[in-house]
């Protein structure tokens, strides 16, 4: 315990000395989130400085092993670090698919060379990754993917198309599912490969979303050479890795549901729309819908807390974890929908200072994608029905 206290004191003073003031301001837009990469995009130059300082101690990914550039912190120390960062309102120095998705998969399935080559640049925010899973005809039914990888001895030649590839136009490398074998069942013959997006034959075409931004792309592969050293795990056994990575992706997406901001939706509504003499929100029907939303948010947070506590106590990840992606994203959609009711006209603005560049409307529209990306809500329910409740396929 005293070790932890020492760690806390040291961490506190280090953060005080090293976290720029500008990085202690809450994140207001997607541009304030630092994703790193060869050509990092920034709303403030301190983003890179903050990331570099944290990366030097491995604290962009506090719990990864030191051997791969991580912080090597224990769970308890990482918690202290999070608490101390929260104390001064420090932003996360780096958010990336490398950290949340590829890293955990490489740590589990990658060979030593692959870990040494790819993990440190992720920690330092030097290489930005994108995810090449979905195809025009392989969405929910991901295993029916058709992008081919032909064996050419020491390398493969990849041909095909991906779609909905988030930030493909900004990413430096891609982790990609390809078909190396067509003869078995659809789950067999899928391989998990890594390659540089600058390789000749890779092109991307941005797709504009209903929220107005274009974070994702169609991605085309035309005779793209991929060295075999960049095959993760065994050839044809990529489905297991793909699924493992999806569990991490879903975890990340479900956390979008965690309400941010100091005021609850109910308090915001009370400020905007007024209360009666008894303290009740004047808009009575809205009031009860908000209360139900707040209630479910509270219960969901308790569920996350309980599952985390059980895992820590060595009781394993209970079945409750399988509902996080589904419930968290549906909750986030409810929240955004209610925000429109609470804010009224000002939530519908699209451009201009007055509307904060349409922040609320754009976030509302973007939230609709949460229950699609990383496996749709319906697919999540299918998984619970089958795996947890033991109900048979139709």
């Amino acid at each position, binding site marked *: 315990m005293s070790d932890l206290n020492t760690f806390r004191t040291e961490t506190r003073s280090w953060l005080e000395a090293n976290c720029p003031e500008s990085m202690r301001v809450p994140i207001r837009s997607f541009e304030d989130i630092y994703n790193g990469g060869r050509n990092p995009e920034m709303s403030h130059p301190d983003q890179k400085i903050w990331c570099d300082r944290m990366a030097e101690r491995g604290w962009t990914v506090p719990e990864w092993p030191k051997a791969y550039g991580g912080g090597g912190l224990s769970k308890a120390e990482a918690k202290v670090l999070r608490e101390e960062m929260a104390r001064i309102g420090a932003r996360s120095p780096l958010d990336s698919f490398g950290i949340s998705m590829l890293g955990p998969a490489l740590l589990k399935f990658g060979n030593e060379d692959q870990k040494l080559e790819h993990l440190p640049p992720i920690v330092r925010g030097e290489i930005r990754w994108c995810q090449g899973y979905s195809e025009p005809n392989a969405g929910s039914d991901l295993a029916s993917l058709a992008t081919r990888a032909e064996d050419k001895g020491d390398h493969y030649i990849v041909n095909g198309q991906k779609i909905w590839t988030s930030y493909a136009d900004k990413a430096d490398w891609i982790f990609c599912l390809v078909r190396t074998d067509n003869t078995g069942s659809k789950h067999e013959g899928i391989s998990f490969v890594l390659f540089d997006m600058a390789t000749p034959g890779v092109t991307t075409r941005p797709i504009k979303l209903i929220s107005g931004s274009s974070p994702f792309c169609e991605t085309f592969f035309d005779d793209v050479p991929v060295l075999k050293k960049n095959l993760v795990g065994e050839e044809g056994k990529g489905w297991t890795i793909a699924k493992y990575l999806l569990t991490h992706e879903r975890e990340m997406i479900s956390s979008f549901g965690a309400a941010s901001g100091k005021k*609850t939706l*109910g*308090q915001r*509504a*009370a400020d905007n729309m007024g*209360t009666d003499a*008894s*303290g*009740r*929100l004047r808009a009575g029907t809205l*009031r*009860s819908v*908000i*209360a*139900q939303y*707040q*209630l*479910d948010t*509270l*219960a*969901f947070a*308790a*569920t996350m*807390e*309980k599952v985390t*506590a*059980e895992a*820590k*106590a060595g*009781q394993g990840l209970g*079945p*409750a974890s399988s*509902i996080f992606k*589904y*419930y968290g994203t549906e909750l986030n959609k409810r929240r955004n929908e209610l925000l429109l009711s609470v804010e009224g006209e000002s939530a519908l603005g699209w451009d201009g200072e007055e509307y904060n560049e349409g922040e609320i409307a754009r976030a509302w529209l973007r939230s609709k994608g949460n229950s699609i990306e990383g496996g749709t809500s*319906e697919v*999540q*329910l*299918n998984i*619970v*029905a089958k795996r*947890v*409740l*033991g*109900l*048979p*396929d*139709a």
Partner: protein
Amino acid sequence: MSLVLNEEEIMLRDSAAGFLAETANVDAFRKHRDNPPPAGFDQALWGSIAEMGWCGIAIDEAHGGLGYGFTGLGLIIEQMGKNLTVSPFNSTVLMAGTAIAQFGTEAQKQEWLPKIAAGEVVMALAIQEGSHFDLDSLSTSVSAQGDSFAVKAEKRQVLDAIGADAYVVVGKDVSGYQAFIVTADQVSVQDQSMVDARSSGTVVIDISLSADAQMDPQSLNSGGLERALDIMNIGLAAELLGVSVEAFERTVGYLRERKQFGKVIGSFQGLQHRAADLFAELELCKAIVLKGLRAVDAGDDLGGLASAVKAKLAQISQRATNEGVQMHGGIGMTDEYDIGFFIKRARVLEHTLGDFHYHLDRYALQGGY
């Protein structure tokens, strides 16, 4: 406090589950329903419950209890919900016991808590007036007359009123809440036949009481009554959790075995998604009930949380039991089949000390809107 059960708690829960599944299960409930004993409960079962020490689990050692905490009590109550166990446990231990611990005088605690802990007494809480539980609209039923108090009230939905030896009666006088402990010979009780086939009654009080029957008005009016009710509602939510989870598990079991259209009906996605969504909601229920139980033990402020727990469990117990009947098809509507027992029990529990709407409203008010 962490939202994970420790080994001791798991053992307690499992031993309660084992005992109740054997001796106080759904078959036993059916027998009780068809042939209710005069006292409203099975004396032998009540004796065994007392012998196991369950009645004293949340009562402190200074007053004859085990001082083990409220979480343990909640785990037992949840198992009683799963098994539809009939006993005066809720009325005596959860309701009267909590009331006395929260706003009884020291003399009353010394007199009654050891008896409750030993299972030597059956007690009931008489608070509700009219058809809805509503603390704000309690009538002025108490007036001081020199050293004594005139109490005139009709209290409804008093659980286990028939077999009770004594009652905690909560009312109001001109300045605030007043509560008394009265014995069975001081009131008249009318049986109310309720949908869940448990003992319940209307208690009519019209009497002059001496000051030693009066409970501590100070703690009663400085948040003690609200806290006691919050604790009771969290306990009731624990029983609702047991009822809901059991109804759900029975229903999923049925989905796996009933065949129509040449397949088990559990293979139809229209049912699968409803079941999976309900599973998700029940996981939330488990977490929030445990959060409530832990908060009681930690001495946390309960206001918003207790109403949240009760509202959530009220809502999802409705879903779980309604879907239970629906997904069983025609057989779910029959008296011969057990699933109907769960829907009946769930509604009485929900409406005890405030239903879904009452608690959702209170939760919102506590949240500042």
